[in-house]
């Protein structure tokens, strides 16, 4: 298979074998090669893709998305919301304002949830890393199943008519908003192409700056596992022989507020030692889609029952997807 990053691979091999005189089969040699190949590969992918995605994102303001999704009560709304969630950035700190903003504008509850699940789960950092570490096919499966899960969960929540479990003040705010003129207190500043590129350059470098220590650290740990950990240990606990690996990985991942950039390189090493890819993908979904801080924040707008339904539905969905992955891959 053609590997566009072959130059990094070649360079890593040269450094390990020629400069250090180590065999690629030795523990240290294998670790070093893993590290020297993955670091430039992942960082390059990260910069390029976050720049491209950042440019696209300058066209997608939340207000526009909210207007697109407003009033779309059918499953088409869930599909649109989940697809749009792929490209838009998501910060846990915006979860509440975004949730309120969507509901105020008449976006149905279920459709809002489809967006809330898809946006953090399918983010450019996770996609870049999955692609760089596991290849395009795995990445597309992750995106496909992630979007499917977002659509299904959001649709189910919509059908269950759980509006009464949203904190009442949110509906009060909606009434207030509808009495005001829309966008009455805003000055829109339209962007030129230069400004768009400035913005995407800025957001790409911000992502890079905040993520690179985790990537390098994660790859270092992964390199250690790759070179030194015995495969039998990994396959015993997380391998195909353990049917509970998927639920355990998911339940561990759900409350975690970990930087996926550091976690994924470690999982690559575990996969090489025999951990099934489906278990890894479930873990990735669980870490990105939900986190304890996000749940605490969402509690401000969701009553406990709705929060529990949301978390349980997504968790069960991720576990099912994990088993499905392991069956397919």
């Amino acid at each position, binding site marked *: 298979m053609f590997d566009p990053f072959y130059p990094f691979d070649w360079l890593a091999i040269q450094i390990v074998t020629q400069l250090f005189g180590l065999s690629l089969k030795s523990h240290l040699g294998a670790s070093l090669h893993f590290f020297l190949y993955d670091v430039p590969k992942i960082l390059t992918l990260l910069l390029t893709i976050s720049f491209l995605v950042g440019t696209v994102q300058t066209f997608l*303001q*939340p*207000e526009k998305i909210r207007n697109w999704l407003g009033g779309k009560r059918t499953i088409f709304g869930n599909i649109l919301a989940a697809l749009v969630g792929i490209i838009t950035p998501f*910060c846990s*700190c915006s979860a509440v304002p975004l949730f*309120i*903003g969507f509901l105020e504008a008449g976006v149905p509850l279920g459709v809002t949830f489809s967006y809330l699940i898809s946006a953090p789960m399918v983010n450019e950092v996770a996609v870049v890393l999955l692609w760089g570490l596991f290849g395009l096919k795995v990445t597309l499966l992750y995106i496909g199943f992630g979007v499917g899960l977002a659509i299904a969960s959001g649709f189910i929540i919509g059908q269950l008519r759980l509006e009464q479990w949203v904190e009442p003040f949110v509906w009060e705010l909606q009434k207030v908003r509808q009495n005001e003129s829309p966008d009455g*207190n805003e000055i829109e500043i339209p962007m030129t192409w230069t400004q768009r590129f400035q913005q995407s350059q*800025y957001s790409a470098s911000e992502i890079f700056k905040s993520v690179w220590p985790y990537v390098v650290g994660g790859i270092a740990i992964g390199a250690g596992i790759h070179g030194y950990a015995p495969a039998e240990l990994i396959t015993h606990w997380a391998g195909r022989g353990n049917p509970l690996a998927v639920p355990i990985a998911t339940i561990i991942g759900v409350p975690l507020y970990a930087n996926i950039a550091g976690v994924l390189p470690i999982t690559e090493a575990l996969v090489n030692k025999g951990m099934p890819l489906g278990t890894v993908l479930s873990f990735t979904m669980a870490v990105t889609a939900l986190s304890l801080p996000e749940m605490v924040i969402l509690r401000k707008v969701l009553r406990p029952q709705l929060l529990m339904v949301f978390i349980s539905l997504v968790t069960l969905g991720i576990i099912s997807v994990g088993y499905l992955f392991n069956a397919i891959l």
Partner: protein
Amino acid sequence: MSSIKIEVLGSGCKKCQQLNENVQRAIASLGIEAEVRHITDPIEIAKRGVMSTPALAINGKVVIKGRVILPEQIQPLLSS
């Protein structure tokens, strides 16, 4: 000239703090009188019609949403 009322809207993640810093730097460079409030309560933020943080409001009007801008880009907004 009465002082400008500035609100930095953000729940405390790194981007929001960066915008706050940039606002302080812009004010210092221009040497103007300004009252800066950092709003962290997500519900207060939502009430102002903002859906993605960080955001910047000057004298009650939201001018920047969902991104951090540099002090040099903030200065013209404060002067007008």
